């Protein structure tokens, strides 16, 4: 029997030993903050979200030397644009300072995608933070990752916050499809008993436990490095392109095709018109703001150019025209982004982060400045309606 007992250096001991060592490493790493393993706060916010909340309520993540999603997806190292990020959520799981709702009711509700949430942006540089700072009225950021918004979500948020009247800002992304009630779960959770409901639905899953492990995060980082285009094909088709001023910008190839082959806006016009009319009947004023994709803004400033001469997104222009004709407030950011992108080129200042699909603090600032006159007039007319 002694002959059967494996020796310490034999594979029968080494292999299970490696599995045990991995488990021990995981146990030790569980005590380290997740921030040490993440490349940006969004990664942590998404990893910790529950099905019934936009993000984990009352959380705060800080990541130093964060960088963009395109640099990450395409395993670009030299194009990374490092910055620090803080990401905080309130009691409902949306991205707002925890004290925002303590003694005030928001006048403006913001709904949208990762752009409005502020993906890749620190807390005080988000669109809602900037608007609040400039307008001096409380702005509630109810944007959630992945989807746009639906009526049930808006109604639930409004009910939870006690908003009688106000302005609803809705982001429509160039690539965004008409939403198909993705937020119903979120809305029903808000309708229920709030954060407790949200948390109770999270449950414990061993699959989540394994996927969220620190060892897995480290392993994912290692695995991504080999998908760098020359060792192995990139995981996602991200392309590095040169601007006329010589700077490098990263683009997602699927977004590039949007700039070349625009979509038909008819369905979106009908959907958002119905949407705005329903909210108007509930004493909420809607302002849509249309956000172009990075290649639409920078396509013609590339060398070689992506889409020849400057060409507007037919989808965004058509949507803006259709909604305006029906008396609905729209701010199409395409025009101003085009103008500013060209003007800022020599200053090497960009509306989108060079290594990210999302906009930069500068882009948010430009968008906010464009939105402020429309919001101010909406707030004013809202006040007049109430006083009448």
């Amino acid at each position, binding site marked *: 029997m002694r002959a059967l007992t494996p020796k310490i250096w034999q594979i*029968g001991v080494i*292999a*299970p030993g*490696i599995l045990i060592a*991995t488990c021990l490493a995981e146990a030790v790493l569980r005590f380290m903050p997740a921030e040490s393993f993440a490349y940006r706060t969004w990664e942590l916010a998404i990893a910790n979200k529950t099905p019934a909340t936009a993000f984990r309520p009352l959380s705060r993540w800080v990541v130093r030397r964060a960088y963009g999603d395109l640099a990450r997806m395409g395993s670009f190292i030299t194009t990374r644009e490092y910055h620090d990020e803080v990401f905080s959520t309130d009691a409902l799981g949306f991205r707002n300072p925890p004290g925002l709702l303590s003694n005030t009711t928001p006048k403006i509700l913001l709904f949208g995608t990762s752009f409005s949430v502020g993906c890749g942006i620190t807390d005080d540089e988000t669109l809602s933070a900037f608007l609040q700072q400039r307008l001096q009225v409380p702005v509630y950021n109810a944007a959630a990752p992945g989807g746009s918004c639906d009526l049930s979500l808006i109604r639930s948020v409004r009910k939870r916050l006690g908003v009688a009247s106000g302005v609803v800002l809705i982001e429509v992304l160039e690539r965004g499809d008409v939403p198909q009630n993705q937020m119903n779960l979120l809305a029903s959770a808000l309708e229920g008993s709030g954060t407790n409901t949200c948390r109770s639905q999270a449950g414990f899953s061993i699959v989540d436990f394994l996927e969220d492990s620190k060892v897995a995060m480290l*392993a994912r*980082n290692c695995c991504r490095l080999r*998908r760098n285009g020359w060792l*192995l*094909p990139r995981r996602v088709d991200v392309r590095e392109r040169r601007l006329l001023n010589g700077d490098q910008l990263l683009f997602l190839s699927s977004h590039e095709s949007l700039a070349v082959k625009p979509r038909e806006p008819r369905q979106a016009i009908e959907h958002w018109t119905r949407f705005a009319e329903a909210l108007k009947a509930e004493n909420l004023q809607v302002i849509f703001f249309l956000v172009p994709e990075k290649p639409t803004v920078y396509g013609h400033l590339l060398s070689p150019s992506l889409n020849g001469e400057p060409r507007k997104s037919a989808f965004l222009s058509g949507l803006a025209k259709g909604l305006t004709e029906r008396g609905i407030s729209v701010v199409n950011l395409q025009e101003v982004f085009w103008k500013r992108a060209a003007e800022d080129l020599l200053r090497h200042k960009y509306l989108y982060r060079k290594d990210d699909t999302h906009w930069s603090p500068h882009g948010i600032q430009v968008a906010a400045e464009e939105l402020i006159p429309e919001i101010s007039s909406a707030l004013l007319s809202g006040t007049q309606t109430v006083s009448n």
Partner: protein
Amino acid sequence: MLFNSPMFLFVFLPLAYAGFWRLESKQQRYVWLTFTGYAFYSFWDARFCALMAFSTLVSYLAGRGLLAWKDPKRRKLCLVLPIVADLMLLGFFKYTNFAISSAHSIAGWCGQSFSFPELGIILPVGISFYTFHTISYIVDAYRGTIVPTRNFFEFSCYVSLFSQLVAGPIVRFRQIEGDLEKIDRADWRAGLNIGWSFFVIGLIKKVLIADTIALIIDPRLNEQVQLASGEAWLCMLGYTYQLYFDFSGYSDMAVGLGHLFGMKLPQNFDSPYKALNIADFWRRWHISLSSCLRDYLYIPFGGGRGSKLLVNRNLLLTMLIGGLWHGASWTFVIWGAYHGLLLVSYRQWGALWDRMPRLLQRAGTFVLVVVGWAFFRANNLDSAFHILGSMFSWNGLGAEAFPISLFMLLGIGALIIHLFPNTFEVKHSWGLLPSISLGALFVLCIIIVMGGDPSPFLYFQF
């Protein structure tokens, strides 16, 4: 659940292993192995456990019938009933959609309309394998090759043994009957080194070689674009190696797991790309399947007896069914027919082939097999002919589309496949340095398993 998933490596395997060796009696271990098999299967879809349980129960009862009755009519009934039940399960779940879509196509060609709706039937993972297990059990019991077991859990643990449940090897009852009989006397230490050695080598083959090749060639093969000639050959060569490392890696892991649980599973690959001719290839490739095809189809059809025409018919029919067994698609039928024709041709003109230098025989067989994989890999017939068209017409090299790592992997793969001994030819009693090297490669595998998306085994789809 995949063998190359964190869930299997860090949760399922340790629990199954610890539970197995903690239990002592034969019956307890049978029950435990059955339970772990069903638990393993339920990670894919628990609803389909009932199908496996049904197939198991029917075959077990038929086995008991064969044990009890001497009357030929009753015995025949015990043979036919479970086989019909299994084939009906297989036919419904695997071939109904294929039959309907084929009927649609044929009606379309004839200018007729055929309005039978697509049923959207889900193919239960591993159904081809476990039905083969139960059928082989019943046929062997009927023929008297094995004595059917009276112990239900011994039989159910044979059918649901997680190491071979969803992608083989197709282990016949007689091959592990002895190990199952003395399962309570197995010593955990006996299979530890050899078991882990097989498992680690299999994981390396799968994760480091097969999956890495797939990452490079799959995007090109899935794009459905016109490939340059060099590119098409490189893709098919890559797929040839990927398929071998993937499936033989899986089989090695299954064999390793068998050793860890006190069972010796049979060899499934015997360096198939070293084959000297196509008949030799089929003696070496997926041995457990090809021997089943031989014993349960080719020989009952008449085998090598009778006229040349009859023998050729038997060969062709066996390979056509073998092709269809792999998947409900015309690509697999044509792949089976292609190999059937190659076998028939070798039977006719084998003497000429055998006169060639051995190196040429080996290279020729390899090229013929590579060409055949085009049908096996392609998503549809159009795609298969696209690939073959690119391979056999010159429209550029196109090798620049691939990263350098593909050429490195193909080089390493070629060395292992064409020159090195296979996992059953090595002793697995590694010294210090090879053990540490295997350990280091195992760490790399763990990193990829934890950090990448688990890639399913190619044979899971069958």
